[in-house]
């Protein structure tokens, strides 16, 4: 379902869904977590993070509530909905297939070269 998403956008969506699958998180923490987990390789800028969150919320895959943050401020916490969980599973499988495919192409090309 939904419109075709380009690779980058789809990737950010997947990362967000995966990140908040464990526990509800606010925007800053999501960006921070993605950075930490990827050893600073992946950095989601505020300019793509919040539009992505808005898009996912509109799709009904995540939902947000106001809550208290770790530094005791009011913050908006995002969590997965049921539909979001399903979506995450699909996206993960799709990603695995995609990256597997790309990996195979790269490996096979490397073999031929050698």
């Amino acid at each position: 379902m939904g419109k075709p998403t380009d690779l980058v956008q789809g990737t950010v969506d997947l990362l967000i869904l995966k990140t908040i699958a464990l526990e509800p998180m606010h925007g800053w923490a999501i960006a921070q977590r993605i950075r930490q987990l990827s050893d600073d390789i992946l950095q989601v800028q505020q300019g793509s993070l919040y539009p992505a969150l808005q898009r996912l919320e509109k799709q009904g895959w995540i939902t947000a509530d106001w809550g208290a943050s770790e530094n005791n401020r009011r913050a908006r916490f995002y969590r997965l909905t049921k539909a979001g969980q399903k979506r995450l599973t699909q996206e993960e499988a799709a990603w695995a297939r995609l990256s597997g495919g790309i990996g195979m192409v790269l490996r096979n090309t490397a073999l031929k070269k050698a």
Partner: protein
Amino acid sequence: MRWHHRLYVALRGLFGSSTLARELNEELQFHFDRQVQANIESGMTPERARRSAAITIGNQDVIREALRDGQTGAMLRQFGRDVSHGVRLMMKAPGFSFAAIAIIALGVGAVTAIFSVVYGVALKPLPFREPDRLVNIYSASPNIGYARMAVNGADHRDWLASNHVFEDIALYRSLANFNLTGAGDPERLLAARISANLLPVLGVSPAIGRGFTEEEDEIGSENVVLLSDALWRRRFGADPSIVGKAIMLSGVAHTIVGVMGPEFQYPAREFQAWTALAISPGELTRKVRGNNNLAVARLKPGVTIEEAQSEMSAIAARIMKADPQNVLPEVIVVPMHADLITNVRSALYVMLAAVLCLLLVAALNLATLLSARAASRSREHAVRLALGASRERVALQSMAEVTPLLAIGGAMGVAIAAYTVAAFIPLAPPTLPRVENIRLSIEVLLASIAVLSVTGLIASVLPAAHAWNADLTGATREETRSTTGSVRQSRARSALVVVQIALALPLLVGGLLLTRTFAALNAQSPGFERDNILTGHLAIPRSKYRNDAAVAQVEERILESVSRIPGVASAGMVNRLPLAGGVSMVIFEFDSPRALDPALSAVDMRVASEDYFKAMGIPVLEGRAFDARDTAASTPVGLIDERIAKLMWPGESAIGKRFRVAPHLMKTAWFEIVGVVGHIRHDSIDADPRTQVYWSFKQMPMDRMALAVRTEPNAAALTSSVVRAVHEIDPEQPVYDMRTMDEWVDRSLGQRWMNMALVGTFASVALALSAIGVYGVIAFGVARQRREFGIRLALGASRRSIAASVVKHGLALAGIGIGAGMAMSIGVTRSMSSLLFGVNPTDVISLTAATLAILFVAILASYLPARRAAAVDPAVTLRAE
């Protein structure tokens, strides 16, 4: 699960937009602060921490913008902003807005009002179970003028026994007048006698109590009654325990077995009670011939009307073979709903077509207005397009700007319709069925919203199409001093006006044809003098006046009593008043070597008193009217009308000749003709199917009679005196349906009057709108051509020729419109030929008058701008550059 979430998000986007903006700010602020805190924690000074955070995060305004556009409902919010821009535009040009709103209100109001009539009468399903399966069945003999006649009890019994297409066939008699006496004033009740299976056939049951049983269909146990909801509330205070109580109907006690619900108005809304139908044994054995019952049947599921018709025709042929004396050899099966509205259907659809035509004129007129406004803003649109606004965006904006006008105009239109419908119902012509269903129902309101949307679309898309196709370089460069303006735009506006005129013409022609029809009907003499006659109806109860002599005697005494009233010139009685709706006809045999044309063999059978002809102003052409010589004991005499005299005894006197009822119907004596009277139109002024024969009320007394009282001017003023005079003879005798003869004539023309008034009004409005359209286009053109006129004047053109060229432009528009409208008119008016009387659908006078009216209006509408054009001062206009 998902849709309500989306709805919530959308609604929040739409209505909670300020909260949303605040939350967005808060969230982004939190993100920033949290980054600053993280930076400090990693050892930066607060100031560096802030700067670093600002650098990593970037411009928050850009993000905010992107998020706002991404919110659901952003487009709707934009539309909302355009609408409020439209409201400001509306306030800025109150004159323009007033005109636009008035046009919308007029169009929507007229369509809504007419549609509520059409829907209530013609489209709303009947209030019965599966009404599509209900049919009316008639006996008929089309070649002797009996197109749809009531049904004989014996025929009904045969149909029931041999048909396979109906679940059941019920009978009723719609004319059963009762004098309700007892608590309160004596009152005449219009009731119907119904067979026990009528309610099951219709699929309804009483609100309280029960319907009739099979046993109550039998003579001797038929004194039971069902009350209407209205009668139960009005006369019996909605007594919930009324079942089982007795009321006196025409002097006979009837037991109330039930009360019907308020929606049960059968066969029409005037009916207040139902009694059991008991068919006399004579009728059932075909000894007494009479066709008095109306038949209604329910088709078996899946059976079509055609199948039912062919089976009933076969049955009728069998009955005819077994009983060759049967006068009505055919049977006709008609869907109940179609049958109910058969007389008004074409009028209703003509009205609907006329009002839709008017609406189209109004919508185009509005488009002309808006397009003139759009023209003055074409540069603005072009600039916006050049700056990158999408064409959709500009077109959508045009629509949004019209929305406030539509909303106000539409609301006013519905208010106008509500008022008009409320005012119309009491004035509805008596021939219009199902008036009780006419109201602004949900269906009607939905239709008017649809109409409003279409109007708005026509009126806003046409001008917006300009923006769509705008030639950017041309429009941005075009300057106000350009002499010709945008040729394409003014052509488009001219086309709109031409179409308006083309639509107004058939409306005008239709209105004129209906007006001429009405005039022709009014000029048509009904055969009597309609002025200064007061009429009323009497139903003399046989339970009180047990034989013919007693009935005749009380009628004579009533006539004497009424004649004594000061101001009464003469008073007469007849069994069926002309134009009052009742029909009673018989086939006669005339003692003449000539045979009456079968088409004329059904003759109005009248029973009249001596002074009836004097009171009605029906001339006695030969011989005498009835007088004191004619008594129950004397020779049976009769009068015939001039037509029969001419047909049967051409070139000789009919006096002294004889007639009797066709012997296969009834054995009667020969009646001697003592006079020939003027022919009258009994059914309606526009139809004249039958001739008349009169019997004396003393020799053939009838208990249902109508009084006709010739009075001094202002006949209606004597109403209470006449009632008093009747009550002097019998205080329990009601007089009902009292009206002047003038009123009966007007009522019989009510539908015609309404046709004329409505189409005439629509036509006048369409004409006025077209005039405004012509004026608008010409005036706009003149304003743009001032400089050209200035130059022409400076070069020596006369002011006259300038004015003439402007008027010529107006006439050219009208001419093209008339050309296009004429072809349409001829097509349209042919389809309304059934509504016309005494005038041809292609009536030259109407066509010419309509054409002249449009030309005249076009000249008038272009004359004012023409004068302005001629008054241009070349010095001023040229220097103004």
